[in-house]
């Protein structure tokens, strides 16, 4: 019977590819740092500035997580060859790394956005509660999407090379 990727399967392949707790920590802290700064800064600027900040979050986080993802594959090239010989495809391995890492990216983004919005308020950020919530949500969404795109793109790029 066919089915999609399971958590256990993702963990198994992530362990095979040596995706360690340190990798998870790097993803979470990078996401948190970018999101915190953005969430603070976004309260000090107008709509155009906010859009620019969100775009910056997306680009920088996507580039960072793509590099992390590429590094995972580059370090495990022999393991990837071994897994290929027993039926692994780039799709299955990319998905495994993606699901293994993405949770930490989202968690880091949420934490960073929370801290950044508090710091922004203390530093005299403008706008009411609603606009603050919208800004924070934007930061979380942009950084989570960037982490997802970066992890996946890094894996695909390395696999093709």
């Amino acid at each position: 019977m066919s089915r999609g990727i399971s958590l256990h399967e993702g963990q198994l392949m992530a362990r095979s590819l040596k995706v360690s707790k340190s990798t998870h920590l790097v993803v979470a802290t990078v996401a948190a740092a970018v999101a915190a700064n953005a969430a603070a800064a976004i309260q000090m600027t107008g709509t155009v500035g906010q859009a620019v900040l969100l775009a910056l979050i997306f680009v920088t986080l996507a580039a960072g997580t793509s590099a992390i993802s590429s590094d995972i594959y580059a370090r495990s090239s022999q393991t990837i060859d071994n897994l290929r010989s027993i039926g692994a495809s780039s799709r299955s391995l990319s998905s495994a790394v993606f699901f293994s890492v993405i949770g930490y990216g989202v968690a880091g983004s949420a934490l960073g956005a929370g801290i950044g919005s508090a710091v922004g308020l203390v530093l005299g950020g403008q706008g009411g509660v609603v606009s603050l919530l919208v800004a924070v949500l934007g930061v979380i969404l942009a950084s989570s999407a960037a982490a997802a795109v970066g992890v996946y793109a890094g894996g695909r790029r390395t696999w093709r090379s």
Partner: protein
Amino acid sequence: MAQLGILQRSEISAQGRFAVEVKHVSKSYGETEIYTDLHFQLLKGTFVALVGPIGSGKTTMLNMFAGLDSPTSGTIIVMGHDITKMSDDALGEFRAGTIGLVPQVQTLIPELTVRENVELPLHFAKVDRENIQKKTDYVLEKVGIRGESKRIVSTLSVGEKQMVSFARAMVNDPPILLLDEPTEALDPLMAEVILGLLRGDNLTQEKTIFVTTHDRRVTELARRTLRVKKKIP
């Protein structure tokens, strides 16, 4: 150039369905020719041994059958699928359901346990969880390593790793088994388990088995023997 002598040529002209069809295959690495214009078929359900000197290209042929190496020219059709035209992803998915491979060099994942290594092909083949458990238990029992299932592979001896590799190749009940010197690293007891399975067992019944070997005990079990005559210069 290595030449392939086929002892049972009746197989070539046999009508019916083939597990592997090799059509005008040539293989070279740079200036070094390994095979030139190979053309033969393997019937489904046959046990074929490939023998020849070390360095004559036996592993290369096995890897080409598995789609891990490509011919320089020509076509290889495995179970009706032209694997020389498949993308990497399509090949991966094809291998997951069709080919059990026991390579000469260990390709187990050292950080995982015996059980986790054996069940990996089932994950790639998208088998459901209940069947993963059932199939893994069955093959571990058959190969006689169920007691070792929780051991981390890096702690196993070379022979034990070979047994795990064998179990992993058979766990998904693939129609084709490709074995590269399967008894080479085994002590007599372990070799006897493998030979017993190759002699005839539920695990190996009706499978097309293609094995490279120097072991006379293995060639005696084979229905056909292909011989690579020359070492690659």
